[in-house]
């Protein structure tokens, strides 16, 4: 695709507007937090693949930031969803 960078930028903007509207309109629920975290992962992966240009590089160099992003977002989800023991 010729205009891939522009498409990536548009997706990033749409997902950012989505996140902002959730917060601004106070629509944040426990389910939507999961959606928000998934969209954050997608945004991060788009930056890794197309802006950092790691899609064209050997897999191990692409996996380092991807694993970092996946682990951080998963642990944020654990912190959010795991019940606090009394």
């Amino acid at each position, binding site marked *: 695709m010729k205009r891939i960078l522009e498409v990536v930028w548009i997706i990033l*903007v749409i997902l*950012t507007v989505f996140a902002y509207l959730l*917060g601004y309109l106070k629509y944040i629920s426990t389910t939507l937090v999961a959606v928000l975290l998934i969209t*954050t992962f997608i945004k991060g992966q788009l930056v890794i693949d197309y802006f950092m240009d790691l899609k*064209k*590089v050997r897999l191990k*160099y692409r996996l380092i930031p991807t694993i970092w992003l996946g*682990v951080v977002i998963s642990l944020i989800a654990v*912190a959010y969803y795991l019940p606090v023991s009394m």
Partner: protein
Amino acid sequence: MSKNITLKEPYPPGDLAIWIIIYVEFITFALLFLGYAFSRRLDVELFNASQMAVNQTSGFINTFILITSSYFVVKAVQSIRNMTQESQKDSNIEASKWLLFAIMCGVAFLVIKITEFSHIFGMGINLSTNKYFMFYIMLTIFHFLHVLLGSGILFFIYKKTKIYGYLPNDSKGIETGASYWHMVDLLWIVLFPLVYIIR
């Protein structure tokens, strides 16, 4: 039968040393992000109440600005990568134009952040106000310093393009600066929903 095999580059763009720095930054910010997330668990009401004082709109505008600046930086890198002997001057001019846009975005981010900080500090909030604001101030000021450094790096690359300093097959320098800038963008992409939105 021919196979469509795309050969992968052996190393990431830019100097390998910048990637070591990027990995260290990833670890540092991961600890801060998780410190925030797990501290929040212990006092959700305090974090939710404190979060009301921060401006989500300025956080959103800054996310938009960083994403857009990253796009401009990629375009600048492409201009240098696609350079030929004949197009050296034009490619440098084109890259400088994209870099100037990116630097302007960086400055806009910093100005918005300073306005946000002056509002927060003007309310008498500081590091010891509570745990939310301790993390908010630490994370956002630490990230602010990275944007400041990144803008400085982009400015030096911009200066080089202004004297047509990049030659064909000489994109490593600009790729190094660009990789740092994209890292700053990536960190903010996680920081924004975590600190400004999730409640």
